């Protein structure tokens, strides 16, 4: 006997070895279950991260805007009803925006705040003109909201003076490139001649055609909003807490505050249903693994009934007998989850190799999140122990006299 193990381990390992076929089959079951859970969770979280990155990479998580202008009508006491026509919304500045900006920056969970002056206009070059969204930003602050450097195809993200940064589609439509001039015109006729300092491709053709970045000052002049800004863009630490942050800021400032979760409600519901189906699959796999372990152990207890009786007659306490079977359940879970982790790593690397994005980059990374692996292993261990609890209790309660007589 080269290795000396305590009683429960010794008996448990011997039983596992004796029932080799059962052990192998149930380990295969647990391995498959754990691999499915880890693989699916990793796959879905990677895909979600990629979707979120693609969608939210080019927009602010939370946007603060001035409240909508509304009519304040006093009804005469005699009247019973009135039709109130909504007011046309003109471009307005966020009141006291610099203190609102400070307040937002100090709100917990907010990573960055960037003021923006935006309005409609036209880009004109020779006979060609395109309608555009004029966006006056502070480049450094704005880069913390949207990483423009990542999307820049030519030139620099430089909006100082009369420099502007335009999208690739607009550049194509107007036939211009970095260093060329174009004229920006707003609806009330204000205009200025600007030069292109950079061209970006944000991955969305419509935005590539419409977005024109200028300095805040230039946008203020063109849109006739001296000293004002039309919105504050925020980036938050926890994406899914954006709505909470938005509600908090709305309550504090009385301004209109929208989070990405409202403006992209469909994306959010798609992400949620993805997560829900993942949870459902995990739940059922866990149940199946638990039932598998429990049924193997129930059969094992029946098979070993006589031996349990003998061990009891030799002085083994019910607790000792129970620990033998609990250990079996725990070992199924632990060993199965180790094998399952390895299998899921293999699966993930295989899929990472065969799947590609439209642009040829890898869709998935072959790396496992240690947190996911650890929690799957922990879950398998707990499920193994819980599944073993009932058979183990049954074994412990066997009457030795009855058990031996069988």
């Amino acid at each position: 006997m080269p290795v000396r193990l305590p009683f429960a381990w010794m008996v448990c390992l011997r039983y596992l070895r004796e029932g080799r076929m059962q052990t192998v089959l149930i380990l295969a079951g647990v391995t498959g279950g754990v691999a499915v859970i880890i693989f699916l969770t990793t796959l879905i979280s990677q895909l979600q991260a990629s979707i979120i990155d693609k969608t939210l990479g080019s927009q602010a998580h939370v946007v603060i805007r001035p409240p909508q202008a509304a009519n304040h009508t006093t009804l005469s006491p005699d009247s019973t009803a009135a039709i109130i026509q909504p007011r046309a919304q003109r471009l307005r500045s966020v009141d006291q925006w610099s203190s609102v900006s400070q307040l937002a920056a100090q709100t917990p969970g907010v990573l960055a705040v960037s003021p923006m002056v935006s309005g409609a206009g036209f880009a004109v070059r020779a006979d060609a003109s395109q309608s555009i969204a004029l966006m006056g930003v502070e480049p450094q602050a704005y880069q913390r909201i949207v990483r423009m450097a990542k999307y820049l195809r030519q030139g620099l993200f430089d909006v100082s003076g009369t420099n502007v940064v335009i999208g690739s589609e607009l550049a194509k439509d107007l036939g211009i490139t970095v260093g060329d001039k174009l004229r920006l015109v707003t609806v009330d006729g204000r205009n200025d001649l600007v030069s292109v300092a950079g061209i970006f491709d944000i991955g969305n053709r419509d935005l590539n055609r419409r977005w024109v970045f200028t300095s805040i000052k230039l946008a203020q002049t063109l849109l006739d909003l001296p000293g004002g800004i039309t919105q504050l863009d925020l980036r938050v630490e926890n994406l899914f807490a954006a709505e909470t942050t938005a509600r908090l800021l709305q309550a504090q400032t009385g301004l209109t505050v929208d989070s990405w979760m409202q403006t992209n409600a469909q994306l959010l519901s798609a992400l949620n249903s993805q997560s829900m189906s993942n949870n459902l699959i995990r739940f059922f796999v866990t149940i199946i693994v638990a039932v598998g372990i429990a049924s193997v152990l129930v059969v094992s207890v029946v098979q070993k009934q006589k031996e349990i009786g003998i061990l009891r007659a030799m002085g083994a306490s019910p607790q000792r007998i129970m620990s033998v079977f609990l250990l079996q359940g725990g070992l199924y879970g632990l060993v199965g989850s180790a094998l399952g982790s390895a299998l899921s790593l293999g699966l993930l690397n295989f899929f990472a190799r065969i799947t590609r994005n439209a642009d040829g980059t890898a869709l998935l990374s072959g790396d496992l999140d240690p947190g996911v692996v650890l929690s799957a292993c922990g879950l398998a261990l707990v499920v193994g122990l819980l599944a073993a609890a009932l058979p183990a209790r049954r074994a412990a309660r066997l009457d030795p006299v009855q058990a031996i007589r069988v």
Partner: protein
Amino acid sequence: MSPIIELHQIRKSYGLGTPVVAEVLHGIDLCIQEGDFAALTGPSGSGKSTLLNLIGLLEKPTSGQLLVGGQDTAGLDDAAITALRGRSIGFIFQFHHLLPGFTALENVMMPAIIDSGWPTAQAQATALRLLDQVGLKDAAHKRPSQLSGGMQQRVAVARALALSPRLILADEPTGNLDTHSANDIFELLHSVNQTQRSACLIVTHDPALASRCARQIQMVDGQLLPPG
């Protein structure tokens, strides 16, 4: 000589709480002394096995007093009874009842492993000595399935002796063996009784075997016949 087991007015009924209550033992008085070598005989269904289970602390009497080494067992909880059983009583069953997944040596070590929780070097040495004593030193690393019936029963005897119990309970230990092997086992028990002063209580159907025991206890219909 001090008494190992004392039974006072022991009764055992089955089916309590149901309309059919069967009393199997009707007030047994029995004392087994240190060094006793006793045969328990009687027809089938007379309650021999039930009595043996009660003495072996595998079952609890319905009424009466059962003392082990002078200690009343009525007040003991399951854990204490289990520990007491493991340490003071060795069992030999009719069908050896060895653990099939373990070697002869491991089977003999098992009571000591259960008692201490670990396989110790001392337990291994004792087990090897006992296997030597029953003439199976060479079979120490064989599984029960690789041994003959007589050898298996000898391993069972060695296992019963593992913790040097004060009492060995043997339920028809030779019932399943040929005459030669039966004689071997009987002699083995006898020599253990002589050398280690362990008391033996042997249930048997074999009158010849019973007559070779120093003390005969006869049982009929759940009662003991008066000696002689």
